[in-house]
């Protein structure tokens, strides 16, 4: 069979373009979609890969991955209801889940998470060539660039903390990339440069615009999220592109990284025409090493792909407060991804324990509790691997119908905003406001500001005030900018007093750029990336010592440690700053004017000033004239007056 395929790459092409799977004889093949992609690039290697896959997975019990549209006749014969069982193979594992949180504003927040775990080792010259669930393109990136941790997010829109609460995974508007390299990397900057260019290709984004002028090395704000205790920030690189626009061309490559692509499982909901008809859209990829088990004897690589989207009540076109999967994504669910070991939908019903806020259908008896962002939340769970979830119609269309518009959201404890103050094109002031809404507890936050060099910060004007008093930061890390080389980096550890606003201000001067440094649309303004505020926020559960919730008495005296605080990262809005901009349609006029002024004005003035005037004698005598001529001939300049 394999030889047969090698002989007919053309046939393979057709196969691939129809998204087919061939099951012939007793040999089972499982081809992940990213391999489809590589097949398109190079049928030869893909065939080999498929061959290896086939060789290795031989003997594993029968599994099938149904194509959604077209089905080969050969496959049709063997068509059976999908048998979905967790793979006994311990090497890799894929989970998918969707969390839906109805927001108090009537909007709805949907968060997809896809996690691929793979127990392998990309490092130490170990050549990993066989990929099953883990996307090969990313695996190669990890091994080639010795990446220890990689976090990349693309966001369109700004997360409205005050209306929506905290997101599960925060991200700043535009693109954000932060990478921890292995300590074996010698030239981190060169590797970083190359890595951004490669990622730019993988995600079809302008990450290649990341260079030294927008890259910083935060000393404290971005700690590794995976295992490993190297915290030398020389191996960390952080960059944002606030101007990056996220659209379908970024979504498609992101979806291709999923084992099931967008053909089955939760990913069928990811249709761009609906995802980009929303108030907020954010997609991210996180790669990190994690422990395989609790003893942490072996490590595995975790790839977490997340997609967060908020749908707007008002823009949905209908006045009714009602949400369904179909209305949100214009699709319903019919199956889980066959490669997934777990596939679940969670609906946050914490604010709706008795169903007085909204009605959920179909109802489920499965409930789950989790500590999310310092709050104990209750979720209705729909397990897509269970056939009866889909009911008799064989499709799941979750429906949330609001009953009342009452009820208010618990105010988020930490939120921040930022703006540029002042007017004119010479100076300005950046104000960052950080709100602590906790009624009685203060907590420290880490503020990270990365400001491009063309805003020249006057760091001596830096002030931090809360409640009208000076608030001295306990830690300041400031790296001044170098023109055209690197940005300002300012990191501060600030204690936020309870129930207060802390204001950080710093003045800046707007630099005059060289005329080739202006963007094609200079009058639009220049972007300054979001500030990052990272903090351990006291948990709302710990705040609850007055027992506003029913709890056994013995559990409520001391706030328990693991619930006492939780990690939050808040991003402020990016800034759009106008720099002094020349009128680019005027160079010709300017050149003309300057030349005229120089030629006529300066020239003649200079002439007048330097010329020596002498009174001409009415008529010198003949003898004198002759004497002058002789003198001239002999080389004495001038005349005898």
């Amino acid at each position, binding site marked *: 069979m394999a030889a047969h395929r090698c002989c007919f790459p053309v046939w393979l092409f057709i196969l691939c373009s129809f998204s087919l799977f061939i099951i012939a004889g007793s040999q089972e093949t499982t081809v992940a979609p990213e391999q489809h992609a590589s097949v398109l690039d190079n049928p030869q290697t893909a065939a080999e890969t498929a061959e290896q896959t086939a060789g290795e997975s031989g003997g594993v019990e029968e599994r099938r991955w149904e194509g959604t549209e077209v089905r080969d006749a050969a496959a049709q014969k063997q068509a059976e209801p999908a048998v979905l069982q967790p793979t006994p193979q311990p090497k890799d594992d894929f989970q998918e889940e969707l969390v839906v949180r109805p927001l108090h504003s009537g909007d709805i927040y949907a968060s997809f998470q896809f996690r691929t775990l793979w127990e392998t080792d990309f490092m130490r010259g170990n050549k990993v060539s066989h990929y099953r669930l883990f996307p090969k393109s990313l695996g190669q990136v990890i091994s080639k660039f010795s990446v220890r941790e990689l976090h990349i997010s693309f966001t*369109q*829109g*700004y997360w*409205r903390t005050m*209306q929506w609460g905290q997101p599960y995974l925060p991200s700043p*508007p*535009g693109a954000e990339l932060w990478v921890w390299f292995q300590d074996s990397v010698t030239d981190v900057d060169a590797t970083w440069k190359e890595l951004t260019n490669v990622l730019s290709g993988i995600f079809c984004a302008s990450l290649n615009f990341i260079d030294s002028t927008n890259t910083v090395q935060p000393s404290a704000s971005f700690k590794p999220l995976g295992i490993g205790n190297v915290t030398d920030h020389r191996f960390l690189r952080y960059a944002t592109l*606030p101007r990056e626009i996220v659209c379908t061309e970024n979504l498609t490559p992101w979806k291709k990284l999923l084992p099931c692509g967008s053909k089955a499982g939760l990913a069928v909901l990811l249709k761009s025409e609906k995802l*980009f*008809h*929303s*108030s*907020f*859209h954010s997609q991210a990829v996180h790669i990190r090493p994690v422990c395989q088990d609790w003893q942490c004897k072996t490590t595995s690589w975790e790839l977490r792909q997340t997609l967060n989207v908020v749908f*707007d*009540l*008002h*823009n949905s*076109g209908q006045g009714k407060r009602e949400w369904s999967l179909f209305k949100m994504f214009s699709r319903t669910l019919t199956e889980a991804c066959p490669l997934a070991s777990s596939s679940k939908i969670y609906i946050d019903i914490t604010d709706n324990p008795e169903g007085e806020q909204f009605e959920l259908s179909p109802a489920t008896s499965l409930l789950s509790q989790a500590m999310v962002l310092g709050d104990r939340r209750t979720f209705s769970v729909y397990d897509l691997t269970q056939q009866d979830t889909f009911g008799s119609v064989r499709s799941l269309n979750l429906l949330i119908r609001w009953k009342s518009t009452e009820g208010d959201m618990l105010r988020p404890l930490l939120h921040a*905003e930022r*703006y*540029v*103050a*002042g*007017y*004119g*094109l010479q100076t300005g*002031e950046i*104000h960052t406001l950080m709100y602590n809404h906790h009624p009685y507890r203060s907590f420290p936050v880490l503020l990270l500001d990365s400001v491009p060099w063309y805003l020249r910060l006057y760091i001596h004007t830096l002030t931090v005030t809360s409640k009208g008093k000076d608030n001295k930061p306990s830690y300041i890390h400031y790296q001044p900018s170098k023109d055209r080389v690197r940005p300002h980096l300012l990191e501060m550890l600030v204690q936020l007093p309870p129930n207060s606003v802390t204001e950080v201000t710093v003045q800046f001067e707007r630099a005059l750029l060289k005329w080739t440094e202006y963007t094609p*649309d*200079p*009058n*639009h*303004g220049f*972007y300054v990336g979001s500030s990052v505020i990272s903090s351990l926020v006291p948990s709302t559960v710990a705040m609850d010592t007055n027992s506003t919730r029913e709890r056994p008495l013995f559990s409520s005296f001391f706030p328990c440690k693991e619930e006492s605080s939780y990690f939050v990262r808040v991003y402020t*809005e*990016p*800034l*759009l*700053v*106008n720099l002094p*901009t020349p*009128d680019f349609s005027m160079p010709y006029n300017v050149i003309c004017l300057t030349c005229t002024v120089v030629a*006529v004005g300066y*020239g*003649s*003035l200079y*002439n*007048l000033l330097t*010329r020596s*005037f002498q*009174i001409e004698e009415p008529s010198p005598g003949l003898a004198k004239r002759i004497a002058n001529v002789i003198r001239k001939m002999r080389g004495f300049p001038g005349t005898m007056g």
Partner: protein
Amino acid sequence: MGLLSDPNRRRALINLLTRLNAPICVVCYMAGVAWFMGLAFEPFTLRTYMSENAMGSTMVEERFPSGERAVATGREFAAHKKKVSGMPVEWLVKTMQARGLEVYTQRFSRTLPFPDENKERYMVKGTNVYGILRAPRAPRTEALVLSAPCTPGDNNNQAVGLLLGLAQYFRNQIYWAKDIIFLVNDHDLIGMQAWLEGYHHTNTTGMDWSPLQGRGGSIQAALSLELSSDVVTSMDLVLEGLNGQLPNLDLANLFYAFCQKIGVLCTIQGKLQRNDWDSVSGYSHAVQTMMLMVMKQASGRPWGDHGLFLRYHIEAATIKGINSFRQYKTDATTIGRLLEGMYRKLNNLLERLHQSYFFYLMPSLSHFVSIGYYMPAFGLLAVILLLRALDLWVQLATPPPTTEDGIADIEQVRHAHSSSPGVLSVLTPLVISHLTGAALYMLPIRFQEMAVEHFPVSETEAVVLTAIAVYTAGLALPHNTHRLLSGEGTEQGWRVLKLVALLYLAVLLGCTALINFSLGFILALTLVPAAAFVTPHVPKVLSAFVLVILSPACTLLFSVFFFQELQEMPVSFLDGWLLYLSVISQGILDHFLYGSLVYPLIALLVYPCWLLFWNILFWK
């Protein structure tokens, strides 16, 4: 400039200029005025055109349907306003929230330097309410503003209603790329000033305001809406802002384009466009329109709530609905569609409006005069000052030519210089007149309380009358104190002083005209002849009278009458005088409330400069 380096030809040229100085000056003056009047003649002006590509080619559809409902909302607003007799803050907050906006309020208070009798306010306290429509998937970097002032009385309720109606309609659209801020500002300009200062966290005028909670990034453009009555026949565009700043011409083009498209009667300065430019009446109509713009711009005050935005580099205009009792009626739906169209196109902007002109005059809504066309008019007036200065310079440099010997000549010149009064004779009048100017700037506010105690006048009258008193006292000052310091005033003395004054005036007017052409031109019209003819040797009484007539204060008085005339609302002399007094008080208030620069400019620079000429007239 070989011409100048050749002593013979230079001498010839200078001779020509000095001999024909007076006729050339007269010709220049006439030419300047004629040029200016020619600007309104349609064949000499350019048609407006949209320069900004982002707003030009894209077509938008206007679908705003609910004008009737907006009018009803306006009535509801009026009822609530009456109930709380002021800004119905709670109702506005609730209504805006119901429309899906993020709503914030801002409180402010301001004590005026003296009571404003026109608007009857002294201690102003108010609340601005604004709602932000967050654009989907936009990172809060750019915003547009639509504002409607909440004015006392029955004015402008429709505007607030329409604003709320538009907010509701806009909220349901998906295409917004910029946040839209709907602002209802209390106490018109003061509220707007407080809001803008709060938004940009500046404090230029010493106002108290509570900090803003919500922002939308950098504001790209703003429109202010005023509907004075239920029945609107035409829409009027107001452009003149603080200190004579104007928004980018593309904003006016945008308004005009949509009025044409939707079929709304549109006016500028309340004047419809006419097509008969070749008739006398058509031309005078254009002149009237342009002169109105010149007068308004010269006043340096904001003629609508938009005027304060311009300081922050935000292009803004006020759109006024006027009832001019024509047959043609425009309903709220049409106005809503007009605004919708404008906002959709502003929403398409990729950059700030910058493509078109910032310096222009408009003789009609479809024609404009750019800076390149109107500056020569001012240049012709300013050149008179330079010619007179040259004349004086030559007179100073060439004492009676008695000798032909060069060395002797130079010595003589040196002698003449040493005999001429030193720095003191020039410096003393300069210092004295500037001190008078400073007094004119400071005293009216400082001494209002004392004046109120001792004279039976109100505070406002006290301020204005003190100003006039200081102004008049300046004329009576002993201007010849320099004699005490440096002996008898000489022929050379007044010439040097006049030379300095002429150059000073030329620089002053030149700078003013660059920033605010209208102000510079009007000042030049009166001050240049005064500066040109004044010498100690002209008949004193007559010249003194002429000089007073041509002084800045009288210019203002004439402007008041002229403005009323242009608006076709002529006033009697007494009314005009009262109006004149109130204009002075408004000018002073504008300076203290919004930072208008006309009052300090006149008091600290123009008036002292004029005093120098007064000084020359009475030179002894």
